[in-house]
């Protein structure tokens, strides 16, 4: 009645299996294999005797992907995020960074590094041409892109972005571990920890926690929700983020909500003082905001967006500044 070839079910299964053959040839056997026992993040500093072992050690990155530890510090490192670049420079590895994103502008020397593109659009071809022996990526890079780099036989290590300031130290130690600069990383993390501890001590047994509203540079009333590490910074600085209950990283806030929250302090994340002044003037002129405590008391302050938006070593200084602005009484009254 019908020619066989228009019968929709004829041989469908056989065909499907045949056609999937070539795809099978190219797929990795173990696309995200977990190695038992090394899944736990290596947060603590490794003991020296472990480091002297001859056999190559394998650690797992934050995606659980196995990563053979190099015997010595890689010569050519590609950094796929500005905070990673910053940490590499802080570990004295600036000269070994062969490629960085166009956002990697700190420290000043980082601007001279060959660019690989952006965070979500780094160029695979450029990365491959640099022939790096280590690529450090983070969760914000598209995972498909990370997979693509792995298929080109590049050693890729993926790091999570932190949720809390305390995640910074293991992050630094982890980067120290895979670049075999464990000692320097431990020293850097130790120094930052001590700096943080002095702030913690200054803020001990606070009678009250002032409420804080953070305004992100740009259009609209963007602020940081409870999932952002900025929320943790504010809490650690002895404040209370008014948008902490929002289950997001970045939220578009409502003007009425600010008036109702009546924050004691407002921080504006700005790239320059001119941007800060413009942002403050815009905020103050909004109808109804003149009644807000922070506006009446003139407690609107600038926070360096460049430092605050990167989960790197400068975050500790940002935190100390926030703490001094929220609790000037604990920091000798200087704001």
């Amino acid at each position, binding site marked *: *009645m019908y020619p066989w*070839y228009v019968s929709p079910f004829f041989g469908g299964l056989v065909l499907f299996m045949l056609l999937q053959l070539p*795809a099978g040839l190219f797929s990795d056997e173990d696309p995200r294999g977990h190695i038992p026992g090394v899944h736990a993040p290596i947060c603590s500093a490794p003991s020296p005797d472990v480091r002297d072992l001859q056999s190559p050690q394998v650690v797992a990155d934050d995606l659980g992907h196995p990563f053979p530890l190099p015997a010595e510090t890689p010569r050519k490192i590609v950094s796929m995020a500005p905070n990673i670049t910053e940490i590499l420079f802080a570990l004295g590895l600036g000269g070994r960074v062969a490629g960085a994103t166009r956002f990697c502008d700190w420290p000043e020397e980082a601007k001279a590094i060959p660019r690989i593109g*952006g965070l979500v659009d780094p160029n695979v*071809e450029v990365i*491959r*041409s640099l022939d790096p022996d280590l690529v450090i990526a983070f969760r914000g890079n598209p995972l*498909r892109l990370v997979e693509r780099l792995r298929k080109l036989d590049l050693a890729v290590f993926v790091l999570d972005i932190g949720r809390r300031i305390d995640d910074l130290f293991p992050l630094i130690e982890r980067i120290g571990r895979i670049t075999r600069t464990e000692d320097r990383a431990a020293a850097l993390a130790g120094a930052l920890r001590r700096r943080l501890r002095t702030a913690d001590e200054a803020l001990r047994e606070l009678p009250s926690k002032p409420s804080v509203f953070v305004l992100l540079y740009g259009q609209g009333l963007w602020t940081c929700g409870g999932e952002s590490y900025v929320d943790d910074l504010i809490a650690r600085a002895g404040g209370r983020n008014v948008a902490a209950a929002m289950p997001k990283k970045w939220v578009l806030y409502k003007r009425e909500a600010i008036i109702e929250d009546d924050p004691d302090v407002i921080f504006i994340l700005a790239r320059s003082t001119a941007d800060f002044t413009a942002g403050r003037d815009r905020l103050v002129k909004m109808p109804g905001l003149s009644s807000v405590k922070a506006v009446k008391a003139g407690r609107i302050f600038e926070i360096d967006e460049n430092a605050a938006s990167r989960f790197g070593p400068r975050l500790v200084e940002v935190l100390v500044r926030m703490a001094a602005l929220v609790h000037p009484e604990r920091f000798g009254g200087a704001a």
Partner: protein
Amino acid sequence: MSLRSGRRVFWAAALLLGAAGLLLSLLTGPVRTPIGDLARLFRDPDPVRWAIIVDLRLSRAVLAFLVGAALSLSGAILQGYFRNPMADPFVVGVSSGASLGAVLATALGFEAAAFGFSGPGLLAFASGLGLVMFVYALSLRRGGFKVETLLLTGIAAGALASALTSFFLFMRSDSYDQAVFWLLGSFQLADWGQVATIAPWVVLCLLAAVWLARDMDLLALGDDTAQALGSPVRRVRMAFLAMSALLAALAVAVSGIIGFVGLVVPHWVRILIGPGHRRLFIASALAGGTFLLYCDLIARNLLPAELPIGVITAAVGAPFFLYLLHKKR
């Protein structure tokens, strides 16, 4: 110029341009490649050069060609199917369904890979095909079949899927950047695995379409006439619908949504070589592949940062299309 010699010019030009485009793809990119590097590729194997030319550029060029061929073949089939030049693979809901799947996968962090697809690719394929099947099932429900019903159902279901897509994008604003690559299309992450995944299907659908091309010619005379002339109309229609949906969903799954190719390339080809479907199908696949190959060349070389390819297909394709359309009329 007679149609016959026009055809000869078309085939020669398409093949020549295709070969030239392939060569250009291998030689251009952010990393400078002198032509001597191609010659040295086999004589003096260097892992970096091999990775850039073969693993990155060649696989990308082949994938762009295959996706272009799939989209424009899918468009050629649907335009014949609906006897309507406005039809294109995305009108029936493939793109909206697929983008919903991709955005959902990104938002939920679904990353498992299978059959050479990435997580979002897999979900895009499934939901693109799923939405089309839903649309077809809905409009074929009562035995009868009307082109208008199918098109309108596709548009409405597509709008619903788009609304959900925007909703998920809004809820997870941090996945927005990644979703853009799906919504505007990109071959940035092309690899041989993707080529191997879609190549057999594209070839198979092309062969089947060419095989059934005579029945498609008969459909142009009307379903009743075609039936009277001995064509199994219902079965032929089912086969063509399935093929066009499969081709478009595969294309979206590996490269995101690339508009305009499926709508316009079959038109160019029809203007240049006439309406016979056997020739039309082969020529559409060839021309669509070549067209997308060049669009990808522009997308990755025009600016230091890569452009989404959907921007290029429309910007390059539309003026040429307008010219052809008005020159003929």
